[in-house]
């Protein structure tokens, strides 16, 4: 391409060499996003953050980190902690990239958990419980999607209403009681280890992998980016934006259904108040992971790292015997810091473009 570039001057502001080099470098970094490369760079930053958190752990509790067995066990604890929210976050990431937001995820997890542990459902065995949890999640997600796309409700409002309604329904079904799961298969999901690693972590990895493929390698993912990045352009390119919006919320609901099974297994029970404030954790993790709240940009790997960073912080406070209140303050600070960093990146980019423009005219 350099041949043609030098042979014929572009009539309008050409892009300078430095930026070409930058774009090429970014393209080389792009193996885990598939394309673009910007996401990959951000993810490296998240990895660095994670490393810093671990170093803090090592410095504050050198006694514990001296024991390799403890380190391995603690790593699994962190991943297990991240697994349920992680699954929810994958669905949330799709919704946010698609230009929406889902505030009802915690409530859907609760409703799906309660529904799958009623005596009637449990009589169908573990298969029936899993099936009902996934179906309930999917159905609620579809309702969300219909409200947003065909009902033209603002996503914030539609899913806020669903949050209230779903928790209400969960309380109604469970009669505000804790419903104990008697299925040893379900309860075993939380305790089973394969090759020394908890099954929950495998489920997280499977969902993340599926989400990554879906976002980066399928037409569904491509449509998601288009619909969130510029809905009008997507529509005028012949993409059915409304149908796709429904599918996005349905996907989020399905992830909540999976999370409901995992959470029920962990607690060996379900109740209407479970998965409280999961929506905030999932949104925060996605945002920290570099997903643009206005849609059109985001990565699954970034979201996963966001979730792991959060659970590492929780773990850090636990091993230092610090209070959960202080923990939340730090989490809040991290969210603000992450967004500020993104803004700085964005500003420097626009400044760069402005300079580029100034020099070429």
């Amino acid at each position: 391409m350099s041949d043609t570039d030098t042979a014929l001057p572009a009539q309008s502001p050409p892009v300078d060499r430095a930026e070409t080099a930058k774009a090429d470098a970014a393209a080389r970094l792009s193996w885990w996003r598939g394309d673009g490369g910007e996401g990959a760079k951000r993810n490296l930053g998240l990895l660095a953050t994670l490393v810093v958190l671990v170093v803090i752990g090592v410095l504050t509790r050198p006694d514990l980190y001296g024991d390799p067995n403890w380190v391995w066990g603690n790593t699994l604890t962190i991943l297990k902690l991240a697994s349920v929210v992680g699954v929810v976050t994958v669905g949330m990431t799709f919704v946010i990239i698609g230009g929406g937001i889902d505030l009802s995820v915690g409530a859907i997890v609760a409703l799906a958990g309660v529904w799958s542990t009623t005596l009637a459902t449990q009589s169908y065995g573990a298969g029936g419980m899993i099936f009902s949890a996934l179906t309930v999640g999917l159905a609620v997600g579809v309702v969300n999607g219909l409200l947003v796309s065909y009902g033209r409700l603002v996503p914030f409002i539609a899913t806020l209403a669903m949050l209230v309604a779903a928790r209400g329904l969960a309380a109604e079904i469970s009669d505000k009681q804790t419903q104990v799961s008697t299925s040893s298969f379900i309860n075993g999901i939380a305790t089973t280890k394969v090759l020394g690693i908890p099954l929950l972590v495998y489920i997280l990895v499977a969902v993340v992998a599926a989400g990554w493929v879906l976002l980066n390698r399928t037409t569904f993912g491509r449509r998601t980016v288009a619909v969130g990045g510029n809905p009008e352009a997507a529509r005028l390119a012949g993409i059915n934006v409304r149908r796709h919006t429904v599918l996005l919320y349905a996907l989020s609901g399905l992830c909540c259904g999976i999370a409901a099974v995992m959470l029920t297994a962990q607690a060996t029970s379900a109740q209407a108040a479970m998965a409280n404030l999961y929506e905030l954790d999932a949104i925060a993790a996605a945002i920290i992971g570099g997903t643009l709240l206005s849609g059109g940009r985001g990565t699954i790997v970034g979201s996963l790292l966001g979730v792991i960073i959060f659970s590492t912080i929780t773990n850090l406070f636990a091993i230092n015997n610090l209070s959960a209140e202080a923990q939340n303050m730090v989490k809040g600070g991290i969210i603000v810091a992450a967004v500020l960093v993104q803004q700085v990146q964005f500003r420097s980019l626009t400044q760069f473009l402005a300079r580029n423009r100034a020099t070429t005219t």
Partner: protein
Amino acid sequence: MTERTERSEGREGMPIRHSMTERTERSEGREGMPDQPRMTERTERSEGMPSMQPEEVEVSTEEEPLVEAPADAVAGEVVLRLTDVVKTFPGVRALDGVQLEVRAGEVHCLLGQNGAGKSTLIKVLAGVHRPDSGEVVWRGEPAAFADPQAAMRAGIATIYQELDLVDDLSVAENAFLGHEPRRLGFVRRGQMARRTRQILARLGHPEIPPGRLVRHLPAAGKQIVSMARALSHEARLIIMDEPSAVLAHDEVGNLFRIIRELTAQGIAVIYISHRMEEIREIGDRVTVLKDGRTTAASLPARDTPTRDLVARMTGRTIEYVFPRRPADDGAGAELLRVDGLTRHGEFADVSLGVRAGEIVGIAGLVGSGRSELLETIFGARRAHAGTVRLDGKALRPGSVGAAVRAGMGMAPEERKSQALLLGEPIYRNVTLATFGRYARLGFTDTGRERAEADRVAASLELRPRDVRRPVRTLSGGNQQKVVVGRWLLGDTRLLLLDEPTRGVDVGARAELYQVIRDLAARGVGVLLVSSEVPEVLGLADRVLVMREGRVVREAPAGELDENTVLDLVMAGSLMEGAPA
């Protein structure tokens, strides 16, 4: 088109000649490229092509000297004088030497086609843009307004076409927005309402209650509030950007009455309108802009013949070169048939047809319903009446998906907001409508997509060619190529183009014209909308003229000339220019 070519060739010996040779040589340097068989052809064609640098094309100044009217048309003192004002944006020289003189108490009309620089000029005066060079003298002193507030304080108020009022504030709150009378930080609501009432009375509208929410006012009422805001600033100059566009016919008379009262108080008004009869009625003097420069300054508004004004508006300063039409009428069977298409308030009873291999152009101003028509044909808007048929098969109304599957493509008017994913790579933008076709079982084939996009990029001479780069980094012309290129993939048989060359520089324009003509040669039907009349006339085989939502004329492009179309496009009272 022969006529135009001759004209530009007749300009040999101009500085333009030099750069043309240079360009030809440069292009020849590319001939060895194996993947570009069209290159040689293009080089030959570029004989008639204007230089790639816009500033070298300013050939008209000697031929058409600036007209200056006798200065005593209006008696008031000069309040505003602009000398050689220049403002450039990336790739565009929006203002290229504007002269303007406005006197106290006059209505100074600004005339010019779309893209002539009127909007930029207004924004310079309103403090939104700062000029790159040139002098702005406001009430005897050189002025450089740092921001819109500064211009307001200096006494220049602007009433934009889309009124910048806050719908959910009251009339008084809007009038005094940003400079509310206050004491100790509290707004003095009583005083504000009283002063608003005074101003409204001065505007002849004491019946508008200051406490009424602006949302509940009709368009004319909102305009009054905008003017009230201007007067609340003690404005000495009020700029009105097409104020009559939002008004019904009888409300225009009222607007004129108010303007006369304002000017009687010594306030100067800059009045922008496309409607010639309004300029005749309300204007004192006229300044005409063309391609960012003043082509006629301060002509008497009532006596200057329309012919002169139109000539000043359209007088060619840039020659576009359009590809030659095929000698034989290669158009095939009818592809698109539109019958009685209607959307209330936008356009009514439009019927038209496009044959395979034919370029049909729609000329019309903004607001004539042309873009809405195009979007309705494409299914992006739902028609209230009428049918759209492609190959004789009726399309499902209001479904873009159905239109695309049937073989339609559209390059919408607003590139950035309607067509592009700016942060995404070029190839993903090119394949936005077709990535599903390259996918297997829902899995995208990025390698194939990139190859296809590469092919399109090569055939459109996209610069830079690397399709992995974000579209954001491309120039306007190249972004437009991406939008058009999207429909070169797949089997698009009818292409709808809405203002395909807006914000595109001269060189890229010529290339786009060639692309469109090549498409037609391959049998694609093209329906083109443009507010630039020469573009429609030069490119299209057949032309439809739209005004106020209706097709007022349909003819082969050869039978129309620019002035005729302009007359048709503007007020109907200008029929003197119609062909015998």
